[in-house]
């Protein structure tokens, strides 16, 4: 019977696919660990910079900066969308693109001007399909984004915001909440709200009051701290997106492997049944033939 051979062929191909998905799962796991370590290492910088800002605020400096100031009228809104370069990671790219397109439609109602930049091949093709003009596209960000490249993007946004070309910047990325929870979110990057000043929390931690000496001056430092903090914030988005991508791929490939296992099981069962019925049929034929001869 041709059916048996077909079943066997199918089972073999599913087995091969399972090998591939299992390997991809292992690779994603290894990459996830690396990306996670990087993300953890990057928190030190943010922590220290927050501390400097708090010390500045404690010394009586008013925390103001052009990046923190919302513009009076919002005419132009820039958007940055972070997706993956590769697929096979479940709904990761799809949900980001959906969230981004929805926000973009809302933006268009408020402000006409403003551009959209996309990182990741998947997002680029999805936006092209949706007929959205892409200002800049980046494909160089893989599982380990470099700060240097991210800082360039951030600097450009800072310049555009400070010079008044744009009034708001949104970013769509997958936020890493925990290993089992990642959310596609759209957040506002500029005006920058990333600097929280919690004076009550740290006011009485040590009896020794630190009277900081500021070089050149508190204002001069603040001028530099805010952009640096903003760059770190953008970098954090890229790191989060990278970690979430690997997790999404890991989960997708794990379920693909499991699914292939189930498929193999059911195919084997059908295959065995078909083989057995074939054998039975042949025996019946032989017995029938013998009886006819006798």
């Amino acid at each position, binding site marked *: 019977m041709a059916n048996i051979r077909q079943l066997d062929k199918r089972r073999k191909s599913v087995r091969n696919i399972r090998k591939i998905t299992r390997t991809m799962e292992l690779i994603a796991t290894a990459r996830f660990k690396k990306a996670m370590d990087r993300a953890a*290492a*990057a928190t030190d*910088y943010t922590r*220290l*910079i927050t501390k400097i800002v708090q010390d500045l605020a404690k010394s009586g400096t008013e925390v103001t900066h052009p990046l923190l100031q919302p513009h009076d009228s919002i005419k132009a809104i820039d958007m940055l969308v972070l997706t993956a370069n590769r697929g096979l990671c479940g709904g990761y790219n799809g949900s980001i693109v959906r969230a981004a397109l929805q926000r973009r439609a809302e933006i268009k109602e408020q402000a006409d001007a403003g551009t959209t930049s996309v990182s990741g091949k998947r997002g680029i093709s999805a936006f092209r399909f949706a007929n959205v003009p892409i200002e800049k596209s980046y494909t160089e960000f893989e599982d380990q984004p470099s*700060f*240097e490249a991210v800082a360039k993007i951030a600097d450009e946004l800072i310049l555009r915001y400070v*010079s008044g070309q744009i009034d708001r910047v949104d970013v769509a990325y997958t936020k890493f909440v925990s290993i089992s929870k990642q959310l596609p979110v759209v957040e506002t990057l500029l005006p920058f709200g990333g600097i929280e000043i919690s004076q009550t929390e740290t006011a009485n931690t040590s009896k020794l009051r630190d009277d900081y000496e500021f070089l050149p001056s508190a204002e001069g*430092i603040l001028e530099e701290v805010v952009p640096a903090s903003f760059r770190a914030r953008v*970098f954090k988005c890229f790191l989060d997106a990278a970690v979430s991508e690997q997790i999404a791929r890991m989960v997708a490939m794990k379920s693909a492997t499991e699914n292939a296992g189930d498929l193999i099981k059911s195919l084997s069962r059908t295959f065995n049944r078909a083989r057995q019925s074939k054998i039975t049929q042949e025996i019946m034929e032989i017995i029938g033939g013998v009886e006819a001869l006798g």
Partner: protein
Amino acid sequence: MSSESGVHCVVVTPEKTELDSRCDSLILPMYDGELGVLPGRAPMVGRLGFGLLKLKTSGKEETWYVDGGFVQVTRESVYVLTDRLLRPNQIDRASAEADLQKALEVKPLSAEAYAARERSLAAARAKIRVAK
């Protein structure tokens, strides 16, 4: 500073903690020149320029190139926050000179562009100085 001898110095970039060590004294490249830190220095927050960070440990000197940023001196430690930390021999003089040329050709049209140009000029010049 802590009661232990020496200065505890931590260098952090946005990517990771690059350096966490103890030394006898250190010299920071501030925005307007060098600043030495000995154990027991008063708390300070300062802006860094582009230049060499020198760590002195029992007569030996270790140098690193620092790409701007900040420094915070607390009672316990010295925290250096910078975009990049490089060994002086990692700096390529030719590319630094190319950067300088490129920065010189830019015609700044606004105050922000002028500041950006000044920054890249300072960075390129510091790199050329270090690479020598």
